[in-house]
């Protein structure tokens, strides 16, 4: 009797979990295993679902594909520029927000707006602000020429100009999350530390370096890790600025390369896509591990 009851309740538990297990199994666990299988199947044909060998050919193809190398380069440039810059600016703004009283709530609300907007839609606004067309130089270029510079086409022009817009837009998009986390961390620092330091006559800069920064370092570190991961997966903001044909614009990212291999005019190669996705995963994993090692030395918990 007791035993039967236990089996019944066990069954009940699994029954409640069933939908979640089913969905996760079909759309996460199985694909996770399958992506490795795909990446080793050589010459996979998605129409006939056949392949003629197994091995590392897909990886070697991807690693020798100039489009992929371009995508890797773009992604790394984007990561290296936007992660430190956005974290730094967010820190400065959060400290400013923390120091004031009037208007704080209003400013916090404004700063959060980009988080709730559609990346594709607002990206178009950035595009028309930076783009040069036949009938207008675009607002930003007028600003530049007004200041005595020469105008550049930021959307179809030289590489560095396109990269600049992309970094600018990326920072604009990721700032809300960082400001939110950092203002939370700053207001979490116990006021008593500040009082004690002020009684001792410690300078403001020293207070910041010795108290504030160590106290919020776990959160900064959290932002750096999530920032790295997010920037490595950049894709839809790039599409928003430069359209879907990213290879032609020389602005593709690793994730963009994966999708291009899978779908669209250049698509139909799930094996190459899988190999590229796994390479991306390995890169992210490595960087995260390095981050964790560095943090052990420098973060005060």
């Amino acid at each position: 009797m007791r035993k039967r009851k236990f089996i019944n309740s066990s069954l009940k538990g699994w029954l409640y979990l069933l939908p979640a297990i089913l969905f996760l199994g079909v759309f996460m666990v199985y694909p996770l295993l399958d992506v490795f299988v795909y990446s080793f199947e050589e010459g996979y044909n998605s129409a006939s679902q056949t392949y003629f060998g197994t091995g590392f050919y897909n990886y070697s193809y991807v690693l020798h594909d100039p489009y992929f190398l371009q995508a890797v380069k773009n992604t790394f440039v984007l990561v290296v520029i936007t992660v430190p810059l956005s974290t730094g600016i967010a820190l400065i703004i959060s400290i400013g927000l923390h120091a004031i009283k009037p208007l704080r709530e209003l400013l916090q609300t404004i700063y959060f707006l980009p988080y709730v907007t559609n990346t594709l839609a607002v990206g178009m606004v950035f595009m028309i602000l930076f783009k040069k067309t036949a009938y207008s130089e675009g607002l930003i270029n007028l600003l530049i020429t007004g200041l005595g510079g020469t105008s550049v086409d930021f959307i179809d022009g030289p590489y560095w100009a396109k990269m600049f817009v992309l970094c600018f837009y990326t920072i604009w998009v990721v700032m809300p999350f960082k400001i939110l986390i950092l203002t939370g961390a700053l207001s979490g620092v116990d006021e008593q530390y500040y009082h004690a330091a002020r009684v001792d006559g410690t300078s403001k800069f020293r207070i910041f370096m010795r108290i504030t920064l160590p106290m919020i370092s776990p959160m900064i570190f959290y932002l750096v890790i999530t920032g790295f991961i997010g920037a490595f997966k950049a894709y839809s903001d790039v599409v928003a600025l430069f359209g879907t044909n990213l290879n032609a614009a020389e602005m593709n990212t690793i994730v963009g390369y994966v999708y291009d291999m899978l779908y669209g005019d250049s698509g139909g190669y799930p094996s190459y896509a899988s190999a590229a996705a796994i390479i991306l995963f390995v890169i992210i994993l490595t960087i995260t591990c390095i981050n964790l090692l560095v943090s052990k030395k420098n973060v005060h918990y």
Partner: protein
Amino acid sequence: MGRKNMNTDKKTDYEKIELTVRRQKRISDIITYVLLSVWAVIVLFPFYWMVLTSIKSYGAYNSEYIPKFYTLSPTLQNYVDAFTAVPLGKYLVNTVIFTLATTFLMLIVITLAAFAFARLDFKGKNIVFVIFLSLMMIPNELVIITNYMTVTNLDMRNSFTGLILPSVTSVFYIYLLKENFEQIPDTLYYAAKVDGTSDFKYLLRVMIPISKPTLVTVTILKVIECWNSYVWPRLITDDERYFLVSNGIQEIRENGFGRENIPAMMAAVVVISLPLIILFLIFRKKIMEGVSRGGMKG
């Protein structure tokens, strides 16, 4: 005499110090506000520009070599164009259906799972929970390839089923809800058991009402995510009748209106952005709190 003199000296010293401190404070305040205003302008300007451009007439916009920062003859014609020249209305309806269905199904799935983890005892529960947690680390990019093949092979491309099904579970939300369920005192459960209430009834009548704040947060975050989703819908739909707003706007950019009709394009952008901005202004506190609890985008 000498003593008195010293006293006044001291006083002016204090005043001087106080004055410089106050002046310093004022200067640093000014710098802070200027800095914060600059960023506020950078954030708000694109929104201003999109609304402004959307109410300029096509002719006026194209004749401005130097774009004007205001318009004296606002028009709503662009909004009319946005709904008639391209199927923006259809995109919006699709997105609403997709968002509501996905969020609703997800709420059912995660509530049942969180209930099992928080309240029920059964063999293997802990192992399954650990497996669930480890799935949180898997980036979407890694599984999307097979999902694309699966949905294609099941002939579910260009259907709402194909759009919705892969995103109706979220391990993170299950975890969030489980934590919340566990805070409900056990005594309530035993009292309900004594009264002969079934587990399912207990979940419906007691746990869900108590956890309403968390459920609302999860719902809003999921709605934002659905409204903005781009990659999966793009892979799975190439029939315009099933486009969501993100794909719709991309389609409008590449083929709609003709590339030059930027005011109409901006009108579409405003229409797409507005629902979420309104939602945000209503639920500001909840959204910001929910996001800071771990809602990284994507």
